């Protein structure tokens, strides 16, 4: 009487797998906010993937020679030229910030609120210093004459793709720093004492995502 979709008891094989999975009132055992962040990050993954694919395509279609990244991004340190010096530090800092974030999440779940707040602030500081170093790198490239529309070292698409993609990522990091600061402040004020500290993990998801994206940008821009 109640229709074919209620035949869970008799269902076999694939059918029963679907029924099991579909039968819960809640499809995933996570809160609304965390699920929303996951789905948002999935969409954001598509955005960055398409940015990087477009970069690869214009790198292939560009008619001028592509500059050598090791030379473009080298830095003179104590009279020695070190390729990718600044970038190595930036990447190290960002990955370290993922570590501090993970510890913050752990402390939050252990109800050690104050430690979680400090570690989130540390994460935000590391993130802000990453953005500052990126600004320094931009200014260095600009001083070398690289612009989105022209590049004395070769293909104009190099500067265009570089400024666009690192800029878009830098905006993500900056937004993340602001987001972390807001959450840390509300956490310190006790806004989440009733609801639990899951928000720390949700903001952490975003932060780890931004770091992960950087690993790909680093690989495709600086190591290729």
């Amino acid at each position: 009487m109640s229709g074919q979709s209620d035949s869970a008891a008799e269902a076999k094989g694939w059918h029963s797998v679907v029924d099991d999975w579909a039968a819960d009132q809640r499809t995933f055992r996570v809160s609304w906010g965390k699920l929303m962040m996951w789905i948002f990050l999935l969409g954001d993954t598509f955005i960055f993937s398409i940015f990087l694919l477009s970069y690869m395509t214009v790198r292939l279609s560009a008619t001028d020679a592509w500059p050598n990244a090791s030379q473009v991004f080298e830095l003179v340190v104590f009279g020695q030229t070190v390729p990718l010096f600044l970038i190595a530090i930036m990447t190290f800092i960002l990955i370290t910030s993922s570590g501090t974030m993970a510890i913050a999440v752990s402390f939050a779940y252990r109800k050690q609120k104050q430690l979680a707040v400090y570690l989130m602030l540390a994460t935000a500081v590391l993130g802000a210093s990453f953005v500052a170093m990126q600004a320094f790198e931009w200014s260095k490239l600009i001083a070398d004459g690289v612009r989105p529309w022209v590049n004395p070292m070769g293909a104009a698409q190099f500067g265009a793709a570089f400024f666009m993609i690192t800029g878009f990522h830098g905006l993500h990091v900056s937004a993340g720093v602001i987001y972390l600061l807001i959450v840390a402040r509300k956490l310190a004020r006790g806004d989440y004492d009733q609801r639990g500290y899951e928000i720390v993990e949700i903001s952490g998801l975003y932060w780890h995502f931004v770091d992960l994206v950087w690993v790909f940008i680093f690989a495709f821009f600086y190591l290729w």
Partner: protein
Amino acid sequence: MTMSAGYGDTQQHDGPGSFWTRYVWSQDHKVIAIQYSLTAIFVGLVALVLSALMRLQLGFPGQFSFIDSTHYLQFVTMHGMIMVVYLLTALLLGGFGNYLIPLMVGARDMVFPFLNMLSYWTYLLSVLVLLASFFVPGGPTGAGWTLYPPQAILPGTPGSEAGILLMLISLAIFIVAFTMGGLNYVCTVLQARTRGMTLMRMPLTVWGIFVATILGLLAFPALLVSAVMMFLDKTVGTSFFMPVIISLGEQLDYGGGSPILFQHLFWFFGHPEVYIVALPAFGIVSDILATHARKNIFGYRMMVWAIVAIGGLSFVVWAHHMYVSGMNPYFGFFFATTTLIIAVPTALKVYNWVLTLWQGNIHLTVPMLFAIGFIFTFVHGGLTGLFLGNVVVDLPLSDTYFVVGHFHMVMGVSPVMVLFAAIYHWFPKVSGKLLHDGLGKLHFWGTFIGTYLVFLPMHYLGFLGVPRRYYAMAGTDFIPASAQSLNSSITVAALVVALMQLLFIANLIISLRWGKAASANPWHATTLEWQTPQTPPAHGNFGPQLPTVYRWAYDYSVPGARDDFIPQHLPDSAVAVDDAQAYAKAGK
């Protein structure tokens, strides 16, 4: 914790007080849905007027001095973009998605009402930016709705000064709005269903909107990224999409970019977009056919899988829009194959709709007429899609009126038929008033026959080789002069169809003001939105206690039952014991 809000929620949500918080800055999904719908219908009427102006030029070339070739191209472009994105996507997902998802799955609201409100206001901003391009120097862009570079941003194309920039900005804002709404729809469907509402008991309307939203969340990023890159090409002079170009005898500062890249990105968005529009329509029409034929939908599980399969396949067919753009021949082979595979689940759905009607107790109500009309227009549009999906057949037909006829039939007329069916079907719940039946039937027949008179002859024009997007034909000996008389008749039919839509708007207004009051469940439907204590549903939707769902959405004409429908929230015990007492106990 937000988590605990779902289970056994017994609190009555109080509606907000003042006029402003109630109707303007409202976070109620139903109010937001109406805001979305009215905005989308308004901007859709603008696009309708644009199409009428285009048809005037095509039917009677040169008779109207205010339509010059520049304006013509701008009308084509704005008509296409408005209809696809700002009307169909916004009305089906922002309008019907917002209204129906919480009501149909038994939730009090979307999971993030504030984000939902933000979604509407951002959408309104994108519409305003788009419409602003009519009033800037140079007017709106005339690049064609596909906005192909390099022509889209170069002098010579209408609106290449400011129009194209406003178009790109508006699209980016729209994507932000869609993302905020879309996250809500997906999370609400996945996590906020009422007790007993398993995924495999959801009405197909919800399934269609749900999968379409996922497609949108994954496809719109491609449009966003291409909009950003084209914006940079235009404003700061990057060359993402721009090859070396000599324009008007002068070499431009561009070089080394890839115009084909834009086409790939655009269609990676553009093809799923077809299904973002089609899947909600598939779902809605399934529910309307079952309700008005008093019969369960044929093959419910198959219908769900078909929606999911079509959604997945829609991401691997995009380059069938680019057969003439220049591709490796093996790509053509691949994309033709995937395109034809997508016809399998689609045809399956059509068979199931027809089998749902078979031996049903068909009530030819206005929503049902539109739903059956949809089956016709969709089959016709779908079959010509099989022609165009094949590379060798597509090459001669590409960029002719055959293509125009095809896509208007399959993703213009068909979803619009479903939209009308849906409006006639749910208007009594939304407004508490019945729409006028006679006006509705006149609207249906005028629209149904009229659109056939408009779009069927276009296929023939396409076989003759009449190219699309042309302002006027001149010196083309291979096209017989009779093509022009066909064009004139199409224009007359198009104007009649346009007038029919004014009749529809009049019906909405008249019925809202003077219409008969609707009962809570005028179609005797099973789904939860018809079982609300108030009509229109109040804030919080379901009164003090959320309903518990005991059955799927299609228990029509169940043998042995007292009525020919059993609402989803009635337990077997309330149905098996015959008569009114049981119904009263269950709060019917």
